Each structure stands twice: as structure tokens, then as C-alpha cells.
């Protein structure tokens, strides 16, 4: 069963509805006793890093998530969930969970492309250039776009964490994969069929497939 980690960070129903659609049993909970019984965890979230980390600490989930991933169990971060697994976020100057070495940075002011200034938040559909052939990101044709909405982006300290990159004035890391951890800055649950494919791949991902 898939556990959706509930830490009061935005709306989890869209992830739940996507899992329903792909006929994947799931439970939304913040209870460690329940989450421990799951095979896979999805760690979503929208909102601000400061509040998110505060809620995670209150629910006792910071160490739980760290231990889960360190034990080699599959976890998928989405959007704010992805940012929360880094060491630190510039948003509200927030120390985060620290599973991925690196920092979550704000898009710089004055981003521009061909003389047009680029807006922040980065909102809408953009391409993800996948690197490698991770089982969770398989069968995604080159040039496929996914739905993003964010003002901060993940910046891993080491390249081997990067599973995909996206251009928005700068090139940033939009997908992460390492061991039993995968994470996306975009919203697979809101990215049409290619996004649903990623969720199916994750739910069917067995550790034997891990790199």
C-alpha cells in the first residue's frame, strides 16, 4: 500500500485522486505507526518551507522520513516535499530534512529570455530533460512537459542526484533520483498522462530495481 504523508502542507487530494485513477490503494496519514506499514511513501506538499518543516517536526516526521530512506525504502517527493528533503531552503531561511546535500534557492531577480523578463513563480508546463534511465522515469519521451508551480528550486550539491533538468532562465534540477529516493519539482499528479505514468512507475517500483 502507498502512504501519502499528511503534514498539513496544502492539498493532498489531487495526489489521492491520481492514485485512485491508476487504481492504487493508498492511505493519507501523519501517524508513524500507519506509515511504517506502507511499502512506498509519497511526500507531497505545497506552501512555504518554514511552515512545512514546523509541521513535520511537530508530527515527529523528520527523523521518520530520514530513517525510511536510509533503510532503503522507496519515497517520492513532490514539489515542496522535494524541497523539504534538502539540507536547507532559502525560503524563510529554513533548515530542512537533509537527505539530499544541497540548498533550495529562490529564482534570481531579473531572469530573462530573448529580451522578455521571466515571471516568478515559474508556473505552467515546461520540459524535463531526463538523464539516465531510472525505472520511475522510464518511457517518458524526450520533450515531454510537466506542470510546475514554484518560486524556489532545488540545487543539489552533487550531480549524481540529478535525474532531470529544466530551463527557466537558468537550468535547474527538476527531478532527483538516488537509491530508494525519487523526487520531482513538478507535479506528476497534474501533468496529464505522462505524470500518471511516473506515479504508476513509482508505485510498481521494487527495490531490486533500485540503482
Amino acid at each position, binding site marked *: 500500500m502507498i502512504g501519502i504523508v499528511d503534514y498539513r502542507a496544502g492539498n493532498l487530494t489531487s495526489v489521492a485522486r*491520481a492514485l485512485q485513477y491508476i487504481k492504487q490503494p493508498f492511505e493519507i496519514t501523519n501517524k508513524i505507526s500507519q506509515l511504517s506499514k506502507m511499502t512506498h511513501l509519497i511526500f507531497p506538499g505545497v506552501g512555504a518551507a518554514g511552515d512545512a518543516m514546523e509541521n513535520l517536526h511537530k508530527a515527529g516526521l523528520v527523523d521518520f522520513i530520514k530513517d525510511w530512506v536510509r533503510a532503503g525504502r522507496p519515497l517520492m517527493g513532490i514539489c515542496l516535499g522535494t524541497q523539504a528533503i534538502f539540507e536547507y531552503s532559502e525560503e524563510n531561511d529554513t533548515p530542512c530534512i537533509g537527505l539530499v546535500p544541497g540548498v533550495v534557492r529562490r529564482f534570481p531577480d531579473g531572469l530573462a529570455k530573448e529580451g522578455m523578463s521571466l515571471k516568478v513563480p*515559474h508556473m*505552467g508546463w515546461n520540459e524535463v530533460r531526463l538523464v539516465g534511465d531510472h525505472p520511475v522515469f522510464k518511457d517518458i519521451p524526450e520533450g515531454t*512537459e510537466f506542470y510546475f*508551480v514554484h518560486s524556489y528550486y532545488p540545487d543539489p550539491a552533487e550531480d549524481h542526484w540529478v535525474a532531470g533538468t529544466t530551463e527557466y532562465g537558468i537550468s535547474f534540477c527538476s527531478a532527483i533520483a538516488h537509491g530508494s529516493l525519487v523526487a520531482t519539482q513538478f507535479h506528476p499528479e497534474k501533468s*496529464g498522462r505522462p505524470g*500518471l505514468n511516473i506515479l504508476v512507475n513509482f508505485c510498481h517500483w521494487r527495490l531490486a530495481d533500485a540503482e
Partner: protein
Amino acid sequence: MLSKRIIPCLDVRAGQLTKGIKFLGNVDIGDPVEAAKNYYEQGADEIVFYDITASAEARDIMIDVVRRVAETIFIPFSVGGGIRTVEDMRRVILAGAEKISVNSEAVKNPVIISEGAKAFGSQCVVLGMDVKRVDRSAKIPSGYEIVIHGGRIYTGIDALWWAKEAQRLGAGEICLNSIDADGTQVGYEIELTRLISTNVSIPVIASGGAGEPGHLLDVLTRGSADAALIASMVHYRTYTIDAIKGFLHEHGVKVRRRW
């Protein structure tokens, strides 16, 4: 690079799809859930629902529509019309919408923007602006005035000022509707769109006046819009979203082509 978004707008009355011409003479043209599914499959990047009913009973029907849409399509969609409180917003978000758009309600009670942004994040709060061209004056320096209740009431508020104010209050996006162009199918209000879009840092969706793909090309390039709302041109099956995107792509506009 980020693609320009093509967004069909569905006006819903008592759970049925309608399309008004200059807000008069609406005719029912079908089931909104089916229409949303159809546009999702055609490659819509997002969908906007506008609930034009007012009664509490009809509102429950709308919540049910939102829930069924959320189970059927997996792209962002927003819901507007009659949202007066953060509690109204919460109901629609829990039913499965990503974004809530506030229009007349925000003019009367701007705090709903900041409260909504605080409760659900700026990305959830879209400011819908209905705008009419007027003579420039000390009060309306941009020459564009905010109107409410479908264009029947002039508010004395300058459109450019309101756009910046809404951004300051925490709106995550602006849906900019020209009442002059709405339903005419002769093209978007390019000057207005460019004025607003280049003066705020949040995305602007152009609305009102689309009749052919060239109109979208114009507003997404000269008008600097981040997204374009369409209605009649797809509701009456004159064009498919795929065909519109094909046209934009041929003319050098980046749009999402694979879904």
C-alpha cells in the same frame, strides 16, 4: 522553456455548460464534466470553470461538478464565481480544484485575496478582473476601469492599480477579461493585456475576444500574455485545441505538444 498555456473556459449554470455572448442570451450546451474530459484529451493545459449561478442549491451542484472533474482530468483547473469567503474557497479546493478565482468579491472585500493566499498559498488565488476601456482621467490614469457584475457596475478603480494591488495582497495569477472584447470573437484587447502583463510579476491569462488562432498568436506575443483563455471557438467546435496549438507552434510560440 515554459510553454504558453491554452485554457478553455467553461461557464456553468446549475451544473450545465453555457456560453454567453456579452453576458447576454446564454444557451445551455452540455455537461461540464464531459466537456472538461474532452478538452483534457485534446491537450488543454488547464481548465477554467466559471459558476454563474448564485443560489445555495446550485452551489452544491457545482461542488459535485468539481469533484467529478477532479476524478476525471489530471491537469490544473480553477473555479470562479460567487466565492465570498475563505470557507467557500476551502470547499472548492477540497473538492479538487487547484485554483480559485475571485472577481467582484475581491473588489468589494480585497482581504479575501490575502486570506486565501495565507490559507492555501498564492498559487491557489487567481484574481479575475473585468475591465472596460474608458477615457483617461485622474482617477483612471490607465484608461481601463474595473467593472463588476458582468460589466454592469463601474467601480471607479483603475485596472493597472488593481492588478498591482492584487499582486501585493498575494494573488498568484491574474485572469484579465476585456468586457469590450468578450464574446465578439474579433480578437483580444492587446494593449490592455500588454499593459497589465508587463507591469506585474505574476502570470497573466488573457481573456475575451478569441475567435481564431491568429488572435491567440497576437495576445501571446504582442500582448505578452502568459496564457490565453478560449471559449466559443472551441465550444462550437470551430477549432480543436490541438489545431490551435499546431498553428501557434508553426508561428514560433512554444506550446505543449505532447500529452
